[in-house]
């Protein structure tokens, strides 16, 4: 089942290779059909998933190859637990929409584009489903290539700069992770993630720290966490709409997912020790991203910068390392995928109509495109974290978790709520409201049926998650609870240690309260 869902897109890509390149309609249909089939499979997985089990399920375990000169068996191991379930669902949901969105803006080299899209889907699903470190790494890097092409071939004016920067930046991080992967695999004698999770505590703390940071660097670049974020704005700005949607919707989640699965879950002790650092980066990232967004005149770039801010929330919540923080972050990954994806889609729509993304080129669009305006406002409100929509639930849980873990970063994070409203609403106003200053904007066509077909499902999820988050958090609960137990164990161990050597550790421990109020 999981193999099928992972490789079905690849199969679709292969089929596409045999479709003549000039039959654009057929190409699109095949691609769409493939992604829809994957979405259907995703739904099946969702319903088959047993939310009461913490461990990964629907395992596919085969031997892939044995590392020469050792007995280490690298497995082709797929499995899904609550956390990956959400990510898989997100991917499966977004892909058909993304494919639909390409109908407008991808007119040249459609075949290649669709092939890359489908390859990318396989890569992304693989990342979320792999339970083998090596396999994960392979998928992790494979998913870079399609985006490299998508930005590089179908991107905007500075696409080459953007795509190289994106690729090298993330690749550099990945390579450091590769060393970490190798170290783990060779020292623990297995590449199976659950096994590694069990065995890592046997390594000494300094080694764990180094490994943790080797992993965290790669993920931090991908997320992106604060000082590593500059590739994102460029990549987003230059990418075609569909690329941006995927980038924001899923690819960045690979970073946060990685932080959770391979950072926190594998190295709970280190995570507890350095939680303050990531909370700080996350919280500062929230505010910093908001400031960046305020300074933008390009709508797409603004949303890209807002991603920095929003992912700051996710990082903040993850490293709050308590129940609400983790849950909020997991949910917020989905939320960000939906709302920011939505925003990128919407920006793409007006870009197609006006071929500019400069905010001051718009204004008053609500008059000529009321339905569009409605969707835009909902998307913005979801991003801003309006209660009742999805963004709020995640943000609230994250901020609560962060506050409980360390009030300082929690409060700084809260300030992001204000700044978020400032730049997003300001952009909304300048695009949608006010008088129409550019005559070209007077006769822009409103959202078409196909565009609505892309937007409405996402809007539905926006509201659905906002009103009934438990439907989405339910399957995650068991997995997160198990993770929480490990984290709490690490915290307890640390507290015990701090008590033994108060002079050294006490200072830090005072800054980071070890537990919740209970």
């Amino acid at each position, binding site marked *: 089942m999981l193999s099928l869902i992972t490789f079905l897109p690849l199969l679709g890509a292969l089929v596409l290779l045999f479709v003549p390149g000039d039959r654009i309609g057929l190409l699109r249909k095949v691609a769409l059909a493939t992604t829809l089939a994957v979405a259907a499979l995703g739904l099946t997985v969702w319903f088959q998933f047993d939310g009461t089990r913490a461990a990964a399920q629907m395992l596919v375990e085969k*031997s*892939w*190859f*044995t*590392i*020469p*000169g*050792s007995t280490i068996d690298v497995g082709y191991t797929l499995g899904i637990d609550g956390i990956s379930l959400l990510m898989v669902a997100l991917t499966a949901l977004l892909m058909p929409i993304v494919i639909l969105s390409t109908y407008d803006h991808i007119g040249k080299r459609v075949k290649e584009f669709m092939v890359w899209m489908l390859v990318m889907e396989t890569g992304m699903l693989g990342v979320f489903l792999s339970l083998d470190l*090596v396999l994960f*790494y*392979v*998928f*992790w*890097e*494979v998913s*870079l*290539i399609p985006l*490299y*092409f998508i930005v*590089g*071939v179908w991107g905007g004016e500075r*696409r*080459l700069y953007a*795509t*190289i920067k994106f*690729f*090298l930046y993330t*690749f*550099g991080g990945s*390579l*450091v992770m*590769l*060393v970490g992967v*190798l*170290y783990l*695999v*060779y*020292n623990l004698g297995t590449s199976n993630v659950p096994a590694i999770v069990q065995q890592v505590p046997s390594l000494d703390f300094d080694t764990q720290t*180094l490994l943790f940071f*080797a992993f965290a660097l790669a993920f931090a670049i991908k997320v992106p966490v604060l000082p590593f974020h500059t590739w994102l704005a460029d990549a987003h700005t230059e990418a075609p709409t569909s690329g941006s949607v995927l980038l924001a919707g899923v690819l960045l989640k690979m970073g946060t997912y990685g932080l959770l699965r391979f950072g926190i879950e594998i190295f709970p002790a280190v995570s507890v020790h350095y939680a303050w650092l990531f909370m700080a980066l996350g919280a500062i990232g929230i505010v910093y991203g908001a400031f960046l967004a305020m300074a933008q005149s390009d709508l797409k770039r603004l949303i890209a910068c807002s991603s920095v801010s929003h992912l700051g929330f996710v990082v903040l919540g993850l490293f709050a390392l308590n129940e609400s923080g983790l849950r909020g972050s997991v949910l917020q990954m989905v939320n960000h995928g939906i709302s920011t994806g939505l925003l990128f889609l919407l920006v793409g729509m007006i870009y197609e109509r006006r071929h500019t993304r400069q905010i001051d080129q718009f204004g008053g669009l609500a008059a000529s495109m009321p339905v569009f305006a409605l969707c835009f406002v909902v998307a913005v409100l979801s991003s801003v974290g309006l209660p009742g929509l999805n963004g709020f639930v995640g943000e609230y849980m994250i901020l609560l978790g962060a506050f409980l873990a360390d009030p300082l970063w929690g409060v700084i994070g809260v300030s992001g709520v204000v700044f978020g409203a400032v730049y997003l609403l300001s952009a909304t106003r300048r695009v949608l409201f006010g008088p129409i200053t550019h005559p070209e904007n007077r006769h822009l066509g409103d959202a078409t049926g196909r565009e609505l077909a892309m937007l409405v499902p996402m809007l539905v999820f926006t509201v659905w998650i906002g009103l009934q988050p438990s439907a989405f958090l339910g399957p995650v609960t068991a997995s997160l609870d198990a993770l929480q137990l490990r984290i709490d164990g690490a915290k307890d161990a640390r507290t015990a240690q701090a008590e033994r050597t108060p002079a050294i550790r006490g200072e830090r421990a005072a800054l980071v309260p070890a537990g919740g109020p209970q």
Partner: protein
Amino acid sequence: MNASTFLGTLAAQLPADPRAPALTAATPMAKSDDLAHMFESAFQDGQWLVAAGPMIALAVGALLLLVADIARPLRAMRPLFFLAGIGVSAALLFGQFSNEPGLVLEGTLLANRTTALWGIVFLLSTLLAWIYSLGYYRGEESKLSGEHDFLMLVTPIGMMLMVGAQDLLIFFLGLELLSIPLYALAAFQRGRSASIEAGIKYFLLGTFATGLLLYGTSLLYVGEGTLSIAELTRMPPTSAISLFGVALIASSVFFKVSVFPFHLWVPDVYQGAPTPVTALMATGTKAAAFGFLISAALLLPAQSATLVAVIALLTILVGNLGALMQEDLKRMLAYSGVAHAGTLLLVVGGLLASDSPDATANATNAALFYMGAYVFGATGAFGILALLENDGARFTRLASLRGLARSRPGAAAALALFMLSLGGIPATGGFFGKWFVFSILIEADMIGIAIAGALLSVVALAYYLRVIIALYMQPAPEGELPPRTVRPLSAGVATLVCVAGTLLMGIMPSVVTRFLP
């Protein structure tokens, strides 16, 4: 020619297979009393023929080819002889997997699964380079294809001798048997000044390196009184004179594998030489030299592990930087080859640092896999360049790749794949090559070196990506497309083989790894 006489000599040697009882005491000290005894001790039970079989097959093939070149009616059979030589040799090598002859000829030659695998790498490299050479040459050169093919077919013999050598003399002869044909091949396009220049540079520096090697070997001999690598590594030399000798030998080998600061010839020669020859040089020579380097690595003092690793890093750095802004593709690939040599040298560093009993075996595995992936990637890349050169334009310029994705989607896709493999992106063989190399470093606890190496390969990717950018992302130059020359089917097949190999090693590495010892 006197080829036939040689054939005769060889043929005469073939039945010399006295089923003599195996004798031990393979000492280099010749006992002057009993000649028969010497024969017995040397030839043992004929295992040496099994060991040398692949080489003999190649030699026979090569000589037959030469004969066919002279004898007009047989001309058409030249490719057949070439392929037969390779095929029989490969078959014999596969035979060695199950039946490892081990040390033969008084311990001067080793033939086991490892050397057989190396041999296969060499054959592959030769075969691919040869296929790409079909139709590459124009005018008068094309009339010399018999000679060309002969020289090409001789080189893998030298390579096999090098990796099998357990005696410095054998190594030296293998090296020469590899080098001298390559000198000639580099300058093969006599009508092209670049080719001549490449030939002369390669030759002069090569002989200089040979001089260093010989002098070093002689000093080592003065110091230790033996040429047997096994003995030398068993008790690593410590005297100053021996160490100096080792240093000179190392310099010479480093020259062959193009390690900083012995790499400077590489870009010039690779650029100037005919592209198929470049492919052979880049992959075959490097593989052979590394095969030897790893088996003889323990000649180097263990303390030099860090030194070697640092040299390796410098090599990677220099190679990558040299390639970074390169506009000439062959030159870029040459620098990239330097970087790859550096990466492989990391294996040697790791091997020296490791105290594991399996260190050599692991290092060999890593190097083998890496080299295998490199053979597919680099030969494929050079091969495609060779094909493109035939279109008449100056296709080795980076800019001339623009629009190729439109005019030749297949070639462009293959080239892009090779670039990704050379860059070590997963799902290509290059990734697992890199993986195994780094794992050697990890096992040797050289984490810092590993991270540095990893980061340096980011630079590498930058220029591989430039190729892809030119292929796919930049607009085609104005004007009509370059003329499409008819491609030999063989080149397509070779490219497909490279693509398949690259992908297979990247997706199912077990296909290859299970052959590793």
